[in-house]
């Protein structure tokens, strides 16, 4: 008989698989904060910008996901860009315009926009 632990391990393998299939291993992963507070600060618009950039093919090899609140109330909405082998970068007070800049400057050209980075 399979124990619950064995059942769960199997489930975990399936979960990891599904995440990988969604493109988790992409060169760049982008996380947009989508808690009530972040949404109130405008993160839905920001999310849309990234979604459009992906769906229109403006950026490629990008894994986009929402995430909960990380606690930086005064700097919301927050966006985090994780590039393989590099330190993750978190941007604060991201607007639609800033989101666009993050796409063009950071994701496409690899320039971190230091001014908006949360230290």
């Amino acid at each position, binding site marked *: *008989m*399979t*124990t*619950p*632990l064995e*059942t*769960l*391990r199997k*489930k*975990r393998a399936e*979960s*990891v698989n*599904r*995440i990988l299939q969604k493109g988790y291993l992409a060169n760049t992963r982008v996380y947009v*904060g989508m*808690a*009530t*507070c972040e*949404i109130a600060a405008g993160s839905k618009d920001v999310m849309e910008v990234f979604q459009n950039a992906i769906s229109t093919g403006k950026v490629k090899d990008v894994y986009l*996901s*929402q*995430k*909960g*609140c*990380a*606690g*930086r*109330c*005064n*700097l919301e909405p927050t966006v*985090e860009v*994780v590039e393989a*082998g*590099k*330190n*993750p*970068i*978190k941007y604060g007070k991201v607007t639609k315009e800033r989101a666009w800049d993050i796409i063009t400057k950071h994701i496409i050209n690899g320039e*971190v926009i*230091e001014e908006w*980075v*949360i*230290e």
Partner: protein
Amino acid sequence: MKEHVITICNGTACINKDVRGLQNILEEQLVKLDLQDKVKINVSGCLGMCDKGPVMIVYPGYTIYGGVTEKDITEILQEHIINKRPISRLAIQEDNLFNRFFRIFGDTKFFGRQMRIALRNCGIIDPENIDDYIALRGYEALAKILTDMTAQDVIDEVKKSGLRGRGGGGFPTGTKWQFTADQINDQKYVICNADEGDPGAFMDRSAIEGDPHTILEGMIIGGYAIGANKGIIYIRAEYPLAIKRLEKALADAEAHCLLGKNILGSNFDFDIEIRLGAGAFVCGEETALIRSIEGRRGMPKPRPPYPSVSGLFGFPTLINNVETWANVPVVILDGGSWFSTVGTEKSKGTKVFALAGMVNNTGLIEVPMGTTLREIIYDIGGGLPNGKQLKAIQTGGPSGGCLPAEYLDTPIDYESLAKAGSIMGSGGMIVMNEDVCMVDVARFFIEFTQSESCGKCTPCREGTKRMYEILTRIIEGKGMPGDIEKLERLGSMTQKASLCGLGQSAPNPVLSTIKNFREEYEEHINEKKCRAGVCKALLNYVITEKCIGCGACKRVCPVDAIDGNKKQMHHIDNDKCIRCGMCMNTCKFGAIIKS
């Protein structure tokens, strides 16, 4: 942007092993090897690997080096940083549930000082995707207990952890579980109290919105431990997103056989349903919450009997707060012994706070018990903006106390805060600077609690109202000698005689401000003066000699309280003045001041 970050653990154990000395050496070495531009050094709070200290983590890659010596430092810089070859000999594999947060967040001061156990997944996973949770060892604790732990094993583990209720009371969680488990009854309930009502508090909301599954997992474990098959999450209707995510999580968990009949193929069944609260503050009190679920007016009821004996519909009921539940999977997976290494002697683990007020970094933080107020406000919060002086810290939500700057080195734990005259509460923390009037603050909080009193017991219903009235008259300049004593008398009576926690703690802001800032009350009453310039009725606007007699103030004054001839100094008639401040805003010469 620097290429690497090295986070150095500054927990007590590591400091005892002279981690600070190592940091100096590291800094020297960086200069020597000319790596200053490539490597940033960061200091973190306890990383929970005390027996392996001193600990440092190198990013990117999240390589943990334990037992680091002076000699190792050179090797780490040489091999890992310069040659890009992590040193497996020194690296340790630590898979505590909480520490994955630092893989992403460990490199900034705000996060580095924190220790995230309850919020371990918040801001990391997609809360609406159960795969994210499962991939990060989600539901493994549940699987573990279903595989090889008895109900009593689970309770013993929770007892061993020293976990205490995070809703404010601080009652030992394991003991509560034991009481409920000891009741012999076919029907028992598990309740998650998510009726977060403190103004400005959002710990529970963030926890649910960021990681709903951990709450569910905690509750299922609780149900297994006490022998219940039914769980209820009582959450306020004002949290639509949290509710939506909980609903999604419930459906997903059920689809994955993690909830419902025969969980993970075991013979344990557990269901969870959501009940919405209508927004009464008092429904956060457990007996009132239970009444509300029963469909009655949410009013507290005397204890004993405690809910563990006679709770929902009279059945034994285990009720814990969101944050408590979120800790449970970690307690099971990392073990009660590990959990109990975090925190202080009597308060184990971490506590989530909503840091707000006049502080640079406001936000939601989770710190080990025992962290001082100073560390929170200056290290994590980044101090006060505009160079203002700290005047008071209010902890514990609307019914917490106000502590003056002398208490900055108070460690955060249940006993120390109580001793200082405040409470842990559910985790509100408000920083106030010198622009705040403490009488006004006390009135603000009591205004909230008196309007949220359920109206059942006399001290809370009438007592807080009278305190509010006395504070109002003090603020309006009508305070009388003896008012402070009346507040103290009413306050201590209300504390000791009220039925529930709301009334018992409602006077805290008043009594603590009287205790710590009595001279401000005396000034208001005796000298009709508000040193912070907040209480309008006690404020006088005065025109100084800088006045050139332009007449601008005279023209804007809505009540013609300003008089004066052209090109001569003007005067304000304080009997007519309504303290609107228009004159001061209008004067281009800074000639009008508050006094």
